[in-house]
């Protein structure tokens, strides 16, 4: 897959006009992380509603088109879902969301940073511990 496919209109649009960008009030979950390899930064805030559902979710961050678009798309997907849904999220879901780009190993972490931040936040809220295989196992 060529870079022209990776950087489709849609990705660029989410990069330049990120949905759900910003801060929330009265948040239940607030989680931030950086990618030590490239410095990309994502913070996600969640307000949890009834039935442990994601009532509201927003993100801020800076970094490459892939990390920012991925985080933004993820917030859209997550809105209204139960927290359990986040626990079950796997990286393949993120790839699919991005249109299955063929990312080299060094860019995969950009794509997954948003998911990592969201998961860490949700696990923390649920009092559980999220072990990030992709971050703690050398590639």
């Amino acid at each position: 897959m060529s870079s022209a496919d990776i950087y489709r209109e849609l990705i660029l649009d989410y990069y330049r006009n990120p949905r759900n960008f910003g801060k929330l009030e009265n948040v239940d979950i607030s989680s931030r992380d950086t990618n030590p390899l490239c410095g990309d930064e994502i913070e996600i805030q969640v307000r949890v509603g009834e039935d442990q559902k994601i009532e509201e979710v927003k993100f801020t961050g800076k970094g490459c088109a892939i990390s920012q678009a991925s985080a933004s798309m993820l917030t859209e997907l997550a809105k209204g879902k139960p927290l359990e849904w986040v626990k079950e999220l796997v990286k393949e879901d993120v790839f699919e969301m991005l249109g299955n780009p063929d990312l080299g190993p060094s860019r995969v972490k950009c794509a997954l940073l948003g998911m990592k931040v969201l998961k860490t936040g949700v696990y923390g809220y649920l009092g559980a511990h999220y072990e990030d295989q992709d971050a703690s196992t050398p590639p």
Partner: protein
Amino acid sequence: MLESKAIDVERLRADFPILSRKVRGKRLVYLDNAATTQRPQVVIDSLVRFYSNYNSNVHRSVHTLGEEATAAYEGSRKKTAAFVGARPQDLVFVRGTTEATNLVSFAWGDKNMKKGDVIVVTTMEHHSNIVPWQMLAKRSGAILKYVGLNPDGTLDLGSFEALLREAPRLVAFTHCSNVLGTINDAAKLCAMAKEAGATTLVDGAQAVPHMPVDVGAIDSDFYAFSGHKMLGPTGIGALVARRGLLEEMDPFQTGGEMIREVFDDHSTWNDIPYKFEAGTVNIADGIALGAAVDYLESIGMERVRAHEVSLLDYAMNELTAIRGIRLYGPMDTRLRAGVISFNYADVHPHDLATILDEEGVAIRSGHHCAQPLMRWLDVPAASRASFYVYNSHDDVDALKLAIEKAGRIFKV
């Protein structure tokens, strides 16, 4: 005479086997030399020859292999020291520049730094010349201060002078910035620091590979550089100290090789420079660094520098012609090494690097291990193309074309 002739790039490229490989079907255009350089066949051969013919441990061996290995390793120390104008016994082999600054931080710093002392670094330093001093400051209670920069990315001498008035105990600065390309006048800065009573450390990681360096003329107390940035293998570099200084210092790492006598409760140390080379040293790579030095000397460092200035002139011209490009660092190529950092419209450097890679063009993107400098530049990241002896004007053209392609994809 020889020095004045330009490098014959095509002939020289043949010495580097990797340059004939293809990346994603394209010719490899390697412009990530500030991160690490490629190796000529003579350096690879040096490794093969060592392991195939006289591989052995050094210094304590009475047998023939050991004597040959010791002679080659110490021969390389002599060459490498001479290359930067130092005596061999003042050159400690380390893993690289980072280990050199750490060695000084522990072995010199812990003995000499006291609570309230000032350590001066600059805003353009690589993390390897910042974090070891942060740690030393934490251990000793010293305070770390940063020299500011002028808007063009050169050092602000007024700021430097102001900090010198605080009588710092240590002044550590880079000879050449790995992001801005800025070449600092190391001799002048060392003289000013010495006048103020400070000990000086110069980070030569980006200088020794790219221009003639004479530590005697610079008159620094410590000078550090990395082999892998000057055509040598990974895993080896050097710390050069002012005559006499190593003798006054405590050791850093301890163990085999660096001792004279080990008693149950204390030990005494070997002569310099061995006192600072604990355990089995990196013999093969130490020897191969000597082969890299020979190769660079056969070209001549004046010619290396001239070649890079010519590439720099051409590249700065070509790149500034692209709409949306912002270059960082001094525009005067006499003050600048072959490093060009830039940003392009709102294309994030990582995205740019991915697109360039598809064209076979390898550049670096990110914070370049210089986060304080990135904050000063007020950008989260930058792209960087950096040159070396085997780069040609064609490489610059390929870089330009690839950036233009990224511009089309990102609809800049």
